[in-house]
């Protein structure tokens, strides 16, 4: 018998009585505020930032001000130029030179300040979201969902994307003597730009 069949047979023989353990209905609990203020608070708690426009600012000028030293600004969205388009980045090795990646997220979660990205936003070069030094995420307030329950219940992406990441602020670690460091191995910063 294959290991698969042995494992399944043992599980069948050993399991507790299924009739005694009903599946509870899907839970949709907690605060249902899907607002921008809640999102911003949650994002900032996890070390994310809001890229705030100044008078007359465009996304391009806001990025130029926020990242004055950035040489390679890669755009994954049609409405922003950057210095290179993500479609023209051929490999993770090339993506690793990116200073700032600009993407558009299909939805955010107010409870957590999380933004979602999948291969659909990353032109199938998923590593680009993690190899870039910084990421700027364009997000629309109307695409906020209240919390983790509503996100999983409502968003079709969890059933369609091959790769779907909820990013909540930049990469972080506290593995050295408990000191929290933002900017571990993935992005050093994550900023949200409201559209």
């Amino acid at each position, binding site marked *: 018998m294959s*290991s698969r069949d042995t*494992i399944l047979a043992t599980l069948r023989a050993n399991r507790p009585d299924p009739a005694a353990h009903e599946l*509870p209905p899907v839970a949709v609990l*907690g605060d249902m505020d899907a607002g921008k203020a809640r999102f911003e608070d949650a994002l900032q708690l996890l070390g994310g930032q809001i890229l705030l426009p100044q008078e007359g600012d465009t996304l391009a000028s806001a990025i130029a001000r926020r990242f004055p030293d950035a040489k390679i600004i890669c755009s994954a969205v049609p409405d922003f130029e950057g210095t290179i388009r993500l479609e023209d980045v051929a490999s993770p090795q090339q993506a690793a030179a990116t200073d700032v990646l600009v993407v558009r997220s299909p939805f955010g979660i107010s409870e957590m300040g999380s933004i979602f990205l999948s291969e659909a936003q990353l032109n199938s070069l998923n590593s680009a979201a993690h190899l870039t030094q910084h990421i700027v995420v364009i997000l629309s307030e109307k695409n906020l969902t209240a919390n983790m329950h509503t996100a999983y219940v409502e968003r079709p992406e969890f059933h369609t*994307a091959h*790769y779907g990441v909820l990013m909540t602020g930049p990469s972080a670690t506290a593995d050295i*003597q408990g000191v929290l*460091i933002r900017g571990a191995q993935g992005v050093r910063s994550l900023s949200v730009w409201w559209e």
Partner: protein
Amino acid sequence: MKVKPVNHAKAAEAFLEDAPHLTFHDERLWDMRQKRDQQMHLLPEWQELRSRASAIKEHTLANLPEYLEQFEANAKKNGIHVHWAADGAEHNRIVGEILEKHGAKSLIKSKSMVTEECDMRAYLEPRGVVVTETDLGERIQQLDGQMPSHIVVPAVHKLVPDVARIFAKNYNTDPNDDSPQSLAESQRMAARPVILTADAGMTGGNFLVAETGTFVVCTNEGNADLSATVPNLHIATLGIERIVPRMADMGVFVRLLSRSALGSPITQYTTHFRGPQKGGEMHIVLVDNGRSARLGMEEFWTSLKCIRCGACMNTCPVYRRSGGLSYGAVYSGPIGAIIDPTFNERKYSTLPFASTMNGSCTNVCPVKINIHEQLYKWRRVLAEHHELPFVKREIMHMAGKLMGQPTLYRTAINGTEVALSSLPRFVLYNWLNPWGKHRELPHPVKQTFHSWYKKNRLKGKEESKGGKA
């Protein structure tokens, strides 16, 4: 030859002697526990979430074969190769074969307790595969030749100078570097080129979703997503118990996991893998390694609900004061003490004694595993199987008299002035005498579990004070 039981108490003595390490370890974990409490208090629905999580897990375990088959069918439909491993040896062989087929010589991986269980690096390295742990804490442990000492924060027993020494030796950095920031940066700089040239990537995973054939990985450093997306080959290893039925169930678990683990609302990355990326290949190895047998243990099967958050470790006074390495096992702390004996009853026979039975572990567990009761049940099982040294058997005998009769036990430790001043000391220290030898518990027990429980259950508000161990 008979395996020798881990002498946990003795191994912990060295740790207890080392004041700076001990103090930091104790305080850091207690801080994580307090941050968890703060998060809990922000959510009025916390207890409801725990009940749901527990019920979903129990249901899933009772229907595990069907859900695993459903997961397999969906994952295959999405183009994932699904493998089944009965034990660690088979797991390692499967991974080795996949790597060999691709001529992969360099493997980058994120933290996975299952690969620790299987001792995978020790299998792959002699076969010419260079395995690089990319999680900072896990990498520190790899370079130092140690097992992770905590399932969430693997190097939590180390201080900055320890890391500086290890990095100096391996990364040629300044041995006197006393900045955690610059040490973390050294890891980033050392890991990047290895990640960019690796032949294959490996991750563990926190959840399998039967409905969609997805596995979900919750991490903070970004290294898991790098390991999974930079190379074209991604292998993931998960225990068969990690499954939930529906994608919508993930809401319950994601809301509990990081809050319980680190006291942060969510991990920085919550990644859903449902199929290979463009041009890539994805494998998943479903590992049994004793789990299917554990499911048949009437008193212990619910330990399979564990989502490996580490909260029971952070709250445990014995764990905090002994360090994970002293358990001599892949899983340490209260959860380790109840699952390690299922791997090797004799070797880990002492671990269920590494507890003060204060019940704090049970109170913090997000999936409501009755950890301290299982600890007590293990003590009985082990005593019956004569795995205990004589002295402990004697102590058990007395303790058993008390604990075997709940009313008597409660009266004895809570009922009278006399009992309060003498019995808890006995219960706490004498049957764990090496602990008592050093000093009092850092966060003295203000209430016994039972008096707390009685009070709080009546209020209908579990654990507001619970586990103040």
